[in-house]
């Protein structure tokens, strides 16, 4: 298993895909935070709730890019055909998927940290530039970084599982984007009592805020992490079982 994990980590490092994902993440996070900081009045911006909501954008971005990284790690193999040499060297497909989950989770934690640190930094800089007062304390930032990293790591695992189940790269990427950017925000806005148990809301609970929701309308951070871990386990097992039972062409 260690051998497969090392192999998967080299796969992540040996193409430009991971770097490109991080470059997009940085650009997107900076753009979105800038737009939000500029669109609020200074009075609104100085409210703790507004500041938390802006931080919640980083949670979504971190989760999205971590999920994409995980999904690409398996759908890319189907797209390019490298799945064949991969499985010839490691015929145990469960082991291959498990190694991808572990490697993607590690990289995903890094992506979560980058997304949150960038969002928090950009927000603090924007606040200072506009003369607003930063209402957030060390506890908020600690939860943001730790919860955001954990949530992104688990979303990377979800991405591997979904990608292994779906196999098509385009369908997987479109599906993950639709869910994270459109469907779940829609659910959160309309049926928050149910949607707070969904994956993205759970990530928000872990990190401190998500989308338009604040901690009081979300589950507790521990429950958020536990729910996400359950989703990751479910996705990983489904992807692994399907991969084990399907022919590779």
């Amino acid at each position: 298993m260690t051998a497969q994990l090392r192999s998967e980590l080299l796969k992540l490092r040996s193409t430009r895909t991971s770097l490109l994902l991080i470059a997009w993440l940085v650009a997107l996070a900076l753009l979105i935070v800038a737009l939000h900081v500029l669109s609020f009045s200074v009075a609104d911006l100085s409210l703790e709730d507004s500041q938390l909501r802006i931080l919640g954008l980083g949670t979504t971005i971190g989760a999205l890019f971590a999920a994409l990284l995980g999904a690409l790690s398996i759908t890319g193999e189907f797209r390019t055909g490298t799945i064949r040499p991969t499985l010839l060297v490691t015929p145990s497909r469960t082991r291959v998927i498990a190694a991808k989950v572990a490697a993607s989770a590690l990289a995903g934690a890094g992506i979560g940290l980058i997304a949150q640190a960038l969002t928090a930094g950009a927000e603090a800089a924007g606040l200072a530039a506009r003369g607003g007062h930063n209402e957030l304390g060390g506890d908020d930032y600690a939860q943001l970084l730790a919860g955001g990293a954990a949530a992104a790591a688990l979303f990377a695992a979800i991405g591997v599982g979904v990608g292994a189940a779906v196999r098509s790269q385009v369908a997987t990427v479109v599906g993950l984007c639709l869910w994270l950017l459109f469907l779940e925000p829609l659910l959160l806005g309309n049926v928050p009592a149910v949607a707070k148990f969904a994956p993205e809301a759970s990530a928000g609970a872990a990190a401190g805020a998500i989308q338009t929701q604040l901690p009081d309308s979300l589950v507790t951070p521990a429950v958020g992490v536990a729910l996400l871990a359950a989703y990751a386990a479910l996705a990983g097992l489904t992807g692994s079982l399907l991969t084990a039972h399907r022919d590779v062409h």
Partner: protein
Amino acid sequence: MHDATQPPAAAEAPRPAQPALSATNLSKRYGDVAAVDDLTFTLEHGTVTGLLGPNGAGKTTTLRLLLGLAAPTSGTAAVFGGPYQALERPSRRVGAVLESDDFDPGRSGRNHLRVLALAAEIDFDRVEEVLALVELSAAADRPVRTYSLGMRQRLGLAGALLGEPELLILDEPGNGLDPAGIHWLRGFLRRFADAGRTVLISSHVLAEMAQTVDSILIVSGGRLVAARRIDELADPSALEALYLELTA
């Protein structure tokens, strides 16, 4: 590995007990279509065998079944006496190339091999050896997208050879190789088999086959229609006549 304390009886065995490769009543159906239909054959150690047949005859499906990438509908496929998945450290026993382009175009040739070497627990020194063997050392740091088809064939072969396997399975290995490359490949496969190791290559280039292999299996419509030793045939044109007659 044999150790010195083994009883002499074991050392006297002229050949390993299990055939390198065997298919027994092997069948694969996709809906109503039988891609592979009741195929039975074994490969002897130390031989080069050609799997011949028209496009769609079931050659590639047969190789996938033998390598555990697809599950047979019925029958068994065995590598060294058992299913491929049961091999411990499979890359030390079997090297295979199924498609000429199973690479990430953005990854360098060297990193492609290192990724495989890490998973197979093979030293990076061996990566350099196989790169030199297939004459790709100079191009090893370039992304595979810059490689010609012939270079990709050679990189695929390098990956198959990483673990110094006893059995080599190649699907259309001559595609994209220039005459010098074909000549090199033929010599390489000959030396490989002469060292007691076993090769199965699929192809529909008959002339290339006739010069390379010891025996042929001809499949058509998923069924085995002929198994011959090449020295049973009068000359290369006899192979063509046989092939055309059986696959018509």
